């Protein structure tokens, strides 16, 4: 049997499998929302979503509606509606276990760029929306998961602009710059594989590749050479149940999941 799915579907499913039940997760707009809802439906029924605009523990309605960030659908039956200051305070004081972020660029230490491409801040080659709440997620949450399309140009030695912190910034550790101890990027999930960070050096380390791809397939598509784990695991493609849940329940209009290249794998 052959199974067909998009890059985004693979990333979403892979991320959803990473989460733990009975934990809090700081959720941004789009992919992270869909990840959290998929996880809630299939793997971690008691995961608690936290939104920066001030919603704690909603039982988000499906289908996912693009327009409802902060609206009735994705904040449905929350345990608390509150302020942004309070939502971030929960995270800053340590109550939020996971955070999930996208990135335009990532570097060897998991620093993220979502601000600009170029070397002149006042005249960027490409300007992105900036941090949003991303910096707080990356700074405060215990474990940050980064989800991004696997493209060569996105992996760089040093981000053009560090929007949100990784494990080392220009040689300094998180603790040295004052960030909360024992936090930082936990996994990077791309459309081709999954990375962790070396315990000691804190460098990006390939730990899994999508079934059907080789380690070299993944490495060839990167602007930097990451560490490679002694044992690189095979990452399962989306299961039929995951795809059914995504396509029929969560995102039937394909607002999120239809993005990215199509991929086929023999099951």
């Amino acid at each position, binding site marked *: 049997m052959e199974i067909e799915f998009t890059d985004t579907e693979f990333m979403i499913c892979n991320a959803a499998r990473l989460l733990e039940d009975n934990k809090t997760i700081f959720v941004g707009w789009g992919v992270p929302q869909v990840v959290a809802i998929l996880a809630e439906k299939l793997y971690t029924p008691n995961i608690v979503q936290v*939104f*920066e*605009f*001030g*919603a704690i523990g909603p039982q988000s*309605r499906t289908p996912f509606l*693009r*327009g*409802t*960030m*902060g*609206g*009735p*659908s994705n*904040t*449905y*039956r929350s345990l608390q*509606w*509150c*302020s*942004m*200051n309070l939502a*971030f305070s929960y995270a*800053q004081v340590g109550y939020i276990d996971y955070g999930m972020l996208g990135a335009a660029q990532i570097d060897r230490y998991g*620093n993220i760029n979502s*601000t600009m491409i170029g070397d002149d*801040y*006042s*005249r*960027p*080659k*490409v*300007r*992105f*929306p*900036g*941090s*949003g*709440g*991303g*910096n*707080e997620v990356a*700074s*405060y949450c215990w474990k940050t998961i980064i989800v991004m399309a696997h493209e060569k140009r996105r992996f760089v030695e040093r*981000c053009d*602009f*560090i*929007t*949100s*912190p990784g494990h080392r*910034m220009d040689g*300094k550790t*998180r603790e*040295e*710059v*004052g*960030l*909360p101890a024992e936090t930082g990027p936990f996994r990077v999930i791309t459309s081709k594989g999954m990375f962790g960070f070396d315990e000691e050096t804190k460098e990006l380390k390939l730990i899994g590749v999508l079934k059907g791809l080789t380690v070299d397939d993944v490495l060839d598509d990167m602007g930097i050479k990451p560490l490679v784990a002694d044992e690189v695991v095979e990452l399962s493609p989306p299961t039929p149940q995951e795809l059914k849940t995504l396509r029929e329940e969560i995102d039937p209009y394909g607002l999120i999941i239809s993005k990215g290249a199509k991929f086929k794998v023999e099951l």
Partner: protein
Amino acid sequence: MEDYIEILQRGEADIHFVHPDEFRKFVRDKKNRGLEDKLMDVKEAVKKYVKNGDYLAYDFSSLTRGPQSLIREIIRQRKKNLWVLAKFTLLETVLLAGAGCVDKIDVGFLGFGPYIARKVQEGAVKVYDYSNGSVTYRLVAGAMGIPFMPARDLLGTDTMKHSGGIVVRDPFSKIPVALFPALNPDVSVIHVQEADIYGNARVYGPTVATLETAMASKRVIISAERIVETIEFREHPNWTTVPYYCVDAVVHAPFGAYPGGTQGYYEMDSDHYLKLTSIKTEEEMQKYLEEYIYSVDSHEEFLEKRVGVKRLRELIQNSQILEGYR
């Protein structure tokens, strides 16, 4: 024991900073603690309280409970040289930049799409980067009457370098900690579900920074889906989001968040939203502004001639989750 705190880093941004005593005096002299009828037409409110060169803040998003009719009126009155706080924003900065109202943007989230990106790339608007959290802390400090808030975000990043924050060594724990200067906007525009004629205002759903923004701002315009009697507030004082004495003008604006939605009233108009997000060129932008803002005289005319009763009814129909919003 040292008699100083080490400053480890200074952000480079120009900051809009009002001395706490100057802001206090403004509050004393210009804010009215009397119960004064502040209900007025949107035209009058924007004319009186938004000035060229103002630092402008607003609350919540383009998608939900955003002050869209007030933003459109600011554009219609062709306000100039604004310095805008873009926190949790998608399209407000895009429209304001398209209309030439904006010089500078403090960025939590800049706004969406290639149009605003190009404005920055070309240097047509100057940006200072923060994050949604750090700009909110700036408002919290402004609302509390203190000169700064300490926080542990932006540390180690280029965002910090380009922000208005500084990093110091905390005298208690000895860790580096960021200090973000208070922000007291000249004017803020906020949309809520319910207000009375004095400015008491109630938000249902996530409150984002509604209260902090109102408390911290020199002038505050509230637009509301419904104007209710004051007794509604007195019967449930726990639900009051903003007290009247922070507020300068109250505008009755049904569908005030259109094309976004307001919880308990109507859903967003996805078609209109897509029309907006697909704007790429200057020509498309000017065409949009002409059609939907300049060529109509008021929010009411906009609703009637550019949206229409049929569409509004559909948006009301789409809003079927009322639990928690009443």
